[in-house]
């Protein structure tokens, strides 16, 4: 029987992969996509719990997460474009104003 655990483990795997991507990639857009991946993993958890606990609140949260993700996409991509205009690159290693 398909249980909550299945979903949660899948979600954990996806989350870990997303996190790995965030940590190892240099391309800002790819990192951004990995963040989206992590968000999705969380969404999956929300919905799974919502289903198994019979509580709709989780799904509403997913809704909000999506909104945030959309807003994030808009602003984040705008930032990247702005940065690219400036530096001709969106390599995160070039975002190093704080470096000594």
């Amino acid at each position: 029987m398909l249980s909550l655990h299945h979903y949660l483990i899948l979600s954990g795997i996806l989350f870990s992969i997303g996190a790995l991507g965030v940590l190892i990639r240099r391309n800002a857009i790819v990192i951004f996509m990995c963040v989206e991946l992590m968000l999705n993993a969380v969404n999956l958890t929300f919905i799974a719990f919502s289903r198994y606990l019979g509580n709709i609140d989780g799904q509403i949260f997913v809704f909000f997460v999506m909104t945030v993700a959309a807003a994030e996409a808009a602003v984040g991509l705008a930032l990247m474009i702005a940065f690219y205009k400036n530096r001709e690159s969106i390599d995160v290693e070039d975002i190093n104003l704080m470096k000594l």
Partner: protein
Amino acid sequence: MFDNVWLIPLFPLIGFLINGLLGKKIKNEAVIGGIGTLAIFGSFLVSCGILLEMISRAPENRVFEKVVFTWIHSGNFKADMAFLLDPLSCIMIMVVTGVGSLIHLYSIGYMHGEEGFYRFFAYLNLFCMSMLLLVLGSNMLVMFIGWEGVGLCSYLLIGYYFHKKSAGDAAKKAFVMNRVGDFGFLVGLFTLYWWLGENANVWTINFMEIKKASHFLPYGGVVTVATLCFFVGATGKSAQIPLFTWLPDAMEGPTPVSALIHAATMVTAGVYMIGRMSFVFIKSPDTMMVIAVVGAATAIFAATIGTAQNDIKRVLAYSTVSQLGFMFLAMGTGAFAAGIFHLMTHAFFKACLFLGSGSVIHAMHYALHHAHSHDDAQDMRNMGGLRKSMPITFITFLVSTIAIAGIPGFSGFFSKDEILWQAFSNPYHGGLNIILWGIGAIAACFTAFYMFRLVFMTFYGDCRISAKAKGHLHESPLVITIPLMVLGFLAAVGGYIGLPKLIGELFGGIPNYFELWLEPVFEMAQEYGHQYAQSGGHHNPALEWGLMGGSVLIALVGISIAFTMYVKNTDLPGKFTSTFPALHRAVYNKWYIDELYDFLFVNPCKALGNFLWKGFDVLIVDGMVNGVAAVVKGWSSAFRYSETGYVHNYAFVMAAGTVTILGYYIFR
């Protein structure tokens, strides 16, 4: 009249303020000089009034104290701005204002056309005010204002030609050496104040109150310490060994300054101070001996240097140091009245000598200037034969020289002879007396020698400047010669108010008026002195006559040597020099005392200062401070590597941290 004593220092102060603040705008030399001279002359008139009133009073009513206002009052310490009139200060104000007035008058002529004419008169007035405060002060602190004030004026006036480096150096040297003395004065003051307060509960610095409480003071002990400190102050101010080297250098100042400050008044402040506190000094036999020995040593030491100098003013300067030595010798042998007497006569003849030399320099300068010659106007080797062109200067100069040499009939004879006699016969120093007398006599011989050497080199022989310049030589104007004549007259007759008893008896018992006058001042000191005096002096008239004759003989010997060497046989000095080159060099270079002081004090101080600054301050203290900073910086720069500035490093650390923390909570 006594109540108006505050006017005496006030007049010069007003003169100083007017000339100092407005002098630049006035511009008119006659007005500036007039204000300056009138100011001090006003003080002179007041002083005369005070003198007359004092004479009219009975001897026991001659002490008067005038409090103007309370200056400092803190706890049990109180210092009033107050003036003390007694026979001693009366003599001093007469000398200061009298000689001061004449020198002011003289300066109008001498300083004519100098840049900063007003400045000169302002300083001169300020000096007179300080000097008057010094002699009139009724407590040690008011005296100290004057004490430092005259030092300041001396500094200002020596540095009058401030664009000359030598003048600046000399001024600084004078002030600093005076400061060393002041240090002694202060410590002495503290010691006396503290000891009297602590042990006798007399918290005072007032002379009269100290005098009243002086019976509390022990013989020797703390008094020796205090008086020695005071004596250090006196050596600084009065140019005694070891602090005498500033006085010859002080001749960088204009000549009237040398006459007023460095001959007649300021340098005698130390003598005056000892006289003022005679009742304290006498209580320490050791100090008295130190004073006598230092005085005698200075007298002979400076006299030897005086024999080899060529600068006319420097000879006079060393002569001053030497004569001051005589005064201290008198003070140290308990002959306070004789010391003060010599102070007074010395003020007359030395002021006259300096002013005379000024007159000579003035003339020489004028002549050389007009002949476009760059020869030194003060070098006696350039002079000679001036007696023809400058008769008044010559006569007054000669009179004063005779006076200083100690020829009977002139003022210097009476005072110097008195000192020598007292040195020989005083009851305090036992076997040392004869040595003191001997040194004094030899110094007197030297004095006669170098003074007449000066006269012969300057006024006799042939003129050694170019013929062109010779034509320009002429007698100085009246404004210069009048003070010379007055001072010359005083130098001749000033001694008769203090006729030695021996001579007085010859003329029907004329008393020694001077000693009589000062008797109430030094009475107490004599009383204390008798406590430990040894079996009285040898009051043997025959011996006194003999010594008197001896000292005259000594003076004549000095004069005749000078006559032989500088008039009759002018090759002799050169031969002498070539026979004893080392001796001559040493004497000519003032026994290398300046170099010795440089080596002993100045250079080590500089080196120490430099070491402390660069070695200690910068290297050690700052090094430690900066070292701490460097250590912190080193650590932080090591830690800095954890902050790479790359976003993913922060992300990584954040993730790892989160995982660690969560892991801890989940698996604990």
